[in-house]
């Protein structure tokens, strides 16, 4: 994956604290990357993770504590996937832990 300006902007944005608006921005960029780049599956999953989390935050009175619970670990794991993609790996191995974190944070696991 070429180290272009968009990927650099994504890394920079991941260093700041997440927010609903920032997650919506990430989702939009990952959607575009899924359509433009060969690593379609990885970017598609990243888009859905961001969109799902943004939806969870939307229109809610989210306490600071709850916000940290919902977003814990997400930015670091997205950055891990991006680094993996940059190194020429498919990023797929890092996707499962990311989705697991998302489900755990949202309290969706039933097992």
């Amino acid at each position, binding site marked *: 994956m070429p180290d272009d300006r968009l990927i650099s902007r994504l890394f920079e944005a991941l260093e700041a604290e997440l927010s609903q608006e920032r997650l919506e921005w990430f989702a939009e960029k990952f959607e575009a990357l899924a359509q433009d780049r060969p690593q379609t599956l990885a970017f598609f999953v990243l888009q859905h993770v961001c969109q799902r989390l943004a939806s969870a935050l939307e229109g809610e*009175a989210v306490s600071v504590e709850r916000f940290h619970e919902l977003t814990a670990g997400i930015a670091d794991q997205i950055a891990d996937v991006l680094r993996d993609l940059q190194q020429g790996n498919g990023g797929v191995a890092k996707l499962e832990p990311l989705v697991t974190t998302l489900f755990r944070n949202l309290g969706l696991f039933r097992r």
Partner: protein
Amino acid sequence: MESSLKEQLRALLQQKSICHGEFTLASGAKSDFYVDARVTTLDPRGAWLIGQVGWEVVKETASKLGRRVNAIGGLTMGADPVALSIGIAAQLQDPSTPLQVFTVRKSAKEHGRLKRIEGNFSPGDSVVVVDDVITTGGSTLQAINAVEIEGGRVAFVMVLVDRQEGGREAIEQRGHKVVALFTRADLIDTDAGRPAHIAAV
């Protein structure tokens, strides 16, 4: 208009929509209060009051600016009940009014006609863009962009609650007047025991 309608709306917002605590807002900013406007905009009494008060403000602002207005809408879903309430009030008060209502999707449909705006909107319309709450102005600016891209003209912007955190300025920098039915100062008593004064509409 009876000023008491605006007072009633303010009381309802204070009773149902203002939550105190430590919150993270959509922008990521931290705040000691949260405005859950939907419990008021989707309350039948609240919707009726928003319609009555909002339609008066639309007429008055359009007249002051010398602009015709023929549609009202904003970004789904916060703006939807506000726009429809005002559209219904306009129709009840003046059945000949041309005011129509539309809604703006957060993103364009990927299939079909790829529309971003749904409902009663046509290129060339002069519209009031509405929102329930503005903080940074992000969702309102998204709606403004969609209206302009699809050939509409923004007459002005009207919001139910302006949190006074830069949103109004961001929208006005784009050249659009912003009218707020209420501001943070109207709803949050900073001086304990003294209710904020609301100017009559």
